[in-house]
């Protein structure tokens, strides 16, 4: 098995899907000639031609709107939004149209669409290149939202998203692109959407998280192990639908839950996970459910110290988990 970076795993996944299914087209700003601003789609236009890897105008509503039309008419588009921060011009198309066409047409039409977008901060991207936007979409029935946290999951979730007959938002963390590496099988495999993954088993505290924070949580868990605190890490992988069973299982096991996300606190995925636990596992809880998230300030600051203060870090996770273990 080859060791790939998170970015390479996504690129190999895209290549494999396009080789397998000629209906797939890639579509977005600078994805063709330049191979994307992060080089995720590098080489794909050369391999598959200008008709399948298309440089689009700088117009997100049009990218998603035309992709919906293409999907309804039989193609399998994988449009890219260059930064998740730029997805908002397209939100009307995603929420009002893509999410609802199957329902509105009583099943006559559906939208097999995968929207890829790099998200997240900690890379000096400041206001317009650092946001986490998953909670906006996780709120919407009719959408699926996945956020891989490892190269292996990145490739498997991409294949599952492409295979899905309905719209899937696929958020990839830009800080993970080159920092995370891991074994990735060459053959195609699917990671079912809505299935969480227990990345580490533990006894005292459960950390429930997703995306880049999975690797941070694992780092924190390693450090805490030296202190005799045994931490379990559940990677949600999909934030809609949530793997309720896995969430409840780990909560019941340890009785102490720390939910971590980089997105800001209020109205985030953590609130939903927390509600599920208190509804269904109250009598197993030995401590209040704790959330660790970015502060409720308008956006990621540019200043390095402020950015560091804004970001959830392995150290912050470690300290919070320790506090919870000692509660």
């Amino acid at each position, binding site marked *: 098995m080859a060791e790939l970076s998170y970015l390479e795993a996504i690129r190999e996944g895209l290549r494999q899907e396009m080789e397998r299914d000629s209906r797939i087209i890639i579509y977005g700003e600078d994805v063709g000639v330049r191979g994307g601003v992060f080089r995720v789609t590098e080489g794909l236009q050369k391999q598959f031609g200008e008709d399948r890897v298309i440089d689009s105008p700088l117009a997100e509503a049009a990218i998603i709107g035309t992709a919906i039309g293409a999907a309804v008419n039989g193609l399998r588009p994988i449009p890219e939004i260059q930064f998740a921060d730029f997805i908002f011009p397209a939100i009307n198309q995603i929420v009002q149209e893509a999410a609802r066409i199957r329902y509105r047409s009583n099943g006559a039409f559906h939208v097999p669409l995968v929207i890829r977008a790099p998200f997240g901060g900690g890379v000096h991207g400041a206001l317009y290149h650092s946001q986490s936007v998953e909670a906006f979409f996780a709120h919407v029935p009719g959408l699926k939202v996945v956020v891989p946290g490892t190269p292996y999951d990145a490739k498997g979730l991409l294949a599952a998203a492409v295979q899905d007959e309905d719209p899937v938002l696929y958020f990839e963390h830009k800080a993970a692109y080159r920092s995370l590496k891991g074994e990735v099988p060459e053959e195609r495999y699917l990671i079912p959407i809505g299935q969480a993954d227990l990345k580490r088993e533990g006894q005292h505290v459960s950390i429930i998280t997703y995306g880049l924070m999975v690797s941070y949580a694992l780092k924190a868990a390693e450090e805490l192990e030296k202190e005799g605190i045994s931490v379990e890490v559940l990677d949600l992988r999909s934030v809609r639908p949530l793997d309720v069973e896995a969430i409840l299982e780990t909560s019941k096991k340890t009785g102490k839950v720390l939910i971590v996300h980089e997105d800001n606190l209020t109205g985030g995925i953590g609130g939903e996970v927390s509600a599920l636990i208190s509804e269904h596992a109250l*009598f197993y809880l*030995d*401590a209040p459910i704790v959330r660790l998230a970015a502060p409720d300030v308008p956006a990621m600051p540019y200043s390095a110290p402020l950015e560091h203060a804004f970001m959830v870090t392995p150290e912050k996770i470690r300290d919070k988990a320790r506090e919870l273990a*000692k509660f």
Partner: protein
Amino acid sequence: MATEVVSMPQLGESVTEGTIGQWLKNVGDAVEKYESLLEVQTDKVNAEVPAPVSGKVTKILVDPGQTVPIGTPICEIEVEGAGGESAEAPQTPSEEAPTVEAQSAPAPAAAAAAPQEGRGRYSPAVRRLAEEHGIDPARVNGTGAGGRVTRNDILQAANHKDAAPSPAPAKTTVQPAQTAGFAVESAPAVIEDGDTLEPLAPVRKVIAERMVRSKQTVPHAWLMVEVDVTGLVALRERLKNDFKAREGVSLTYVPFMMRAIVEALRAVPEMNSQWNGDSIVMKKRINVGMAAATDRGLIVPVVKDADQKNIVGLAKASQDLVQRSRAGRLTMDDLSGGTFTLDNTGAVGTVLTYPVINAPEVGIVTMESIVKRPVVVGNTIGIRDMVNVCLSFDHRVVDGAEAGKFLQVIKKHLEGIGPDTSIY
């Protein structure tokens, strides 16, 4: 000298207030820790409340007969000796119940000076596990932040408890209902469109809790005998009109059955006892409870000293209890002190019942419907009035041999009644 304020304890899950029955200590009396301080009456239980500390009663704040909410200060005790700081928080009787003592749990140094503020505030997991293992969390050393009792502390205490010999329970005051937790781990109800939810009446909660506790803690065993009551039926037919005219109450089969139970309890005194952990309490008095259906639910008023009453006395006593229970005018005294229970299930038309024991009593018998049946008598077949008598008993206390003997005495007594037997 420090002053300890004693509050109205919580004597049951659904209970929100309590009535002072009587003070067993007066102002100026010395009292030992755990010594009974007063009697409290609630919805369904009478309980003696033990003193939380040793000392001298300095103030009584609530008079007998007054009803106050749980937690209301009811008296003050001046703690003897110095060291007022270390006076323990007031504890309810349930907290006095013996459980794993602190010394049997590993004692982390940090927990030694556990502050009082966290007392009584436990996480849902701690409450659930403590109930499941029968542990009083107040008696467990907390190792969490600020001395909090954690889930792990309870699990460790449970391990120690299983390993250690079970301690003898406290003197038999009424055990508060809150220890059993009837809702825990019940199968979840399925609620569909159109279904409605009826809130639980307090009496329903008490019944549910007691039934669950009885079925979960008492190993029920069951026996039945058939009894030929042709003679009894004839006797009642002959007497009932005169009886009603003379005594003012109807002559039913209940007093006869009660009489038979008294005979059987005398013959098999083990049936008139209570399980007490490492001993069996042999009850001196014979007080027979009668299960009675009311609008509010099942209640069990008690005919006190049933062994000192004849048929007329039993008829009047039972009738009086039934009437007052339907009118909701029973006193706490009427509902407590039972040592055995009779359930007249025949009144609802059954011929066979598996009754639930009214713990801590050892047995409960039913009298089923009296029905005419063809029966072999000698070498002929006759039409006889037959009744089934069913017995559930606590198999920890008695075995089938004693239980069988008990039923045989009942059978013999009832079959010995003829049309001419005197009831006076």
